[in-house]
């Protein structure tokens, strides 16, 4: 129901988003993930109607809302938006904030809807409070309720959790996902935090340098990253040289990888992705120097250097007593 067709965006001579196409189905939650400057926010704002389109077309609910030289203003696009700084109205109570977009409804209807939204986001009884008296998390929920109240066909969220404590983000993301699913809302979120993305979205689009590199669900994006950028942005790991064998497998310094393993043609030649879980410490194998040890709670992640100088990462269980070792032997683990 949201269709972005070959959209390019930019300011002046700079191109910020290049030829991006994606679809979002009804009641689907999507997420645009990428580092800062990749153009994800600009794309979101273009969908909202705050940025003009340089090339391509944006369709909402089957009608074209943005084309070159033509644009439906945001107030007529039937969208809802949650902003990074929440943008609550300080001169209105929580209830009035939520009811702000409901000016076309009759008073009783409006009050009922506001009550409904308060319950949906778990803020019953707080309708008379003032925004400045709320915690960050509560403010964020008010912003969400306000955006959802007019039942928009598409909800857009611009880094909605970035102003919250890191420890809370994932759990709040899951809560918001539950709220959106309950409301059967179609939503598109933008974030640079992959944990949020994976917790919230049905489908994730990874963007880099203005281009959409891959669009798919969490598992696809993690296990089969389509490009080198995706591979390096999502999850952890390093790229090592590989050579194709006659059977389509990949020969690396650490051993053989199956044919379907993520591989990329880079400036350094063909490389494959090795995540920590692909590499294990063994009795025998390639001798590597331990550079860094990071504690992850359930396991360690070692950063190592191969004899040829390539960096690799390995997942090491807590039981193994490699704490003080300078050198370990590495082998490949099972694939994912």
């Amino acid at each position: 129901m949201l269709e972005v067709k070959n959209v390019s965006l930019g300011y002046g001579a700079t191109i910020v988003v290049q030829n991006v196409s994606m679809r979002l189905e009804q009641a689907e939650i999507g997420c645009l993930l990428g580092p800062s400057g990749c153009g994800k926010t600009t794309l979101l704002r273009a969908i909202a109607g705050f940025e003009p389109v340089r090339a391509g077309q944006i369709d909402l609910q089957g009608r074209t809302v943005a084309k070159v030289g033509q644009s439906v203003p945001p107030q007529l696009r039937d969208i809802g938006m949650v902003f990074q700084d929440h943008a609550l109205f300080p001169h209105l109570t929580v209830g009035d904030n939520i009811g702000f977009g409901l000016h076309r409804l009759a008073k009783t209807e409006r009050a009922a809807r506001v009550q409904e939204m308060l319950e949906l986001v778990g803020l019953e009884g707080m309708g008379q409070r003032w925004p400045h008296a709320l915690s960050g998390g509560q403010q964020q929920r008010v912003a969400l309720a306000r955006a959802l109240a007019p039942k928009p066909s598409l909800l857009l969220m611009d880094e909605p959790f970035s102003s919250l404590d890191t420890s809370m983000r994932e759990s709040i993301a899951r809560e918001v996902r539950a709220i959106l699913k309950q409301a059967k809302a179609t939503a598109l979120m933008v974030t640079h935090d992959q944990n949020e993305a994976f917790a919230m979205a049905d489908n994730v689009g990874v963007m880099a340098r203005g281009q959409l590199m891959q669009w798919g669900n969490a598992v696809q994006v993690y296990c089969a990253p389509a490009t080198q950028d995706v591979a390096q942005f999502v999850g952890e790991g390093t790229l090592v040289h590989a050579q194709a064998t006659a059977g389509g497998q990949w020969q690396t310094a650490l051993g053989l990888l199956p044919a379907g393993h993520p591989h990329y043609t880079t400036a350094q030649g063909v490389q494959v992705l090795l995540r920590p879980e692909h590499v294990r410490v063994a009795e025998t194998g390639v001798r590597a120097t331990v550079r860094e040890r990071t504690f992850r709670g359930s396991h360690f992640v070692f950063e190592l250097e191969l004899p040829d100088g390539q960096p690799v990462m390995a997942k090491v269980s807590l039981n193994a007593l490699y704490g003080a070792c300078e050198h370990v032997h590495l082998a490949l683990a099972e694939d994912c």
Partner: protein
Amino acid sequence: MSAVDHTAPAHRWRGFAFALPIALLTVVPLLAVVGMALTPQPEIWQHLWNHVLPRVLGNTLLLMLIVSVVVLAVGVPLAWLTAMCDFPGRKFFAWALVLPLAIPAYVLAFVQMGLFEYAGPVQSFVRDVFGNSRWVPDIRGSLWGLVMVLVMAFYPYVYLMARSAFLTQGHRSMEAAQALGYSPTAAFFKVALPLARPWIGAGLALVLMEVLADFGAIAVFNFDTFTTALYKSWFDLHNIGAAAQLAAMLVLVVMLLLAAEQRSRSAQRFHVSNPQQHRVVLKGGSRWLASALCLLVFAAAFAVPMVQMVAWSLSVWREDLNSDYWGYAWNTLSLALMTAGIATVLALMLSWIRRRHGDGLTSWTVRLAVLGYAMPGVVLAVGVFVPIAWLDAWLMALLEPWGVQTLGIIKGSLAGMLLALAARFLAVAYNATDAAMQRITRSQEEACASLGLGPWQTLRRLHLPLLRTGLLSAFLMVVVDVMKEMPITLMMRQFGWDTLAVRVFQLTSESMWQEAALPALAIVLVGLLPVILLVLQTEKTPSSAG
């Protein structure tokens, strides 16, 4: 705000097109003055160059320099004391030290002159006690007398700005500095003061602009500055060309000050900080020293002049206070209210246009529109007067065939005066309005759009409610300024439209201090109300730099 293609030619000019009519308010007088300044005046320039300008320029620069030093020496320490320390009477002085804003410089001038002149009470008392008063410096022709008057009149600008800076940043910076091993004094000079520099700079620029534009106080002291040379060329030597040339030079200097003030403003960082919780509690001798200092300044700048004015008024009110005075008061108030209304509406429009169209051309046009503040009253008056007289004459010629005899379709009404006053004080209203506008974030505006509100609805439901205090602030500040204003009102008023300020000027020209005290007192009393309201406002939001 909405996704219009900003590169399309039609849109690019929209902001400029909307802002230009408002900017014309200042541009037209400026062009009129420049136009008149373009005729070369060799013989008069010879005289000006050889005999008038050197002294006048020297005087003006000297005055600006000395006033700067003294006003900083007065305003900044007072701001520090009331913002950061605790001493007896602090709460009172914090707001009381702003009250001198209600007293125009020319009123302070004649009060001081009346008090300290040879035949005045102070010197007479000294002569009675000591036999002669030769050691008391003669206030007439005294540079220091004028400096003290200007400092007393304008230090609140520096005081308010510095105070705002210290309230928002002082505490934190002092703590950081002291943690690094600085003593409190060193911390003040090395950290707190430099951080406050943009604020203080903006306040100082305002003071200097007022000094350059001043006409009344300087007239009382018979001091020769740029403005006097301007007056002499125009009214005495009847050479409007030379006067316009001097005016153009004056405007240039003031514009530089304005640019400096704007740059200072942009260097300011606004924080919303918690109200001061820990104050440096002064002990022993310094507590009383602080109180004494505040008391001294308050007395000199407000209490003593007020007492003297009341005393003088009491001696003459029976004869002088007649129905005319209600007329003057009414004229003063209605003029102030009308101008404030116009200026506030225009300021809102400008702020709104600037918000919606962020392009450079619009920005410059808005900056042009508020330039009126830089033009001294008399310059603005002549710049408005001449085009309107021309317009009137043209209109009359047009309507002559219809037998319309009566003139002044535009000028005959208050329009001319209102236009000149609005042009002069638009900057004041705009600064207050725009400061409030800046606190509304773009995402709040976009949130409104995402909730289905068009631009006008957003203006009505988001901007206006949030701008209410800012607009009130703007309105009040213009009211105070118009009530104190004198040159434009003097020059452009129609018969029967004398204001209190005009009365004061006419009476002080005749050195009739006592009689002048009555209208002066009226100005101050009426002006106190908005000043107090203003003080209450800035007390509520210490993060806003007035």
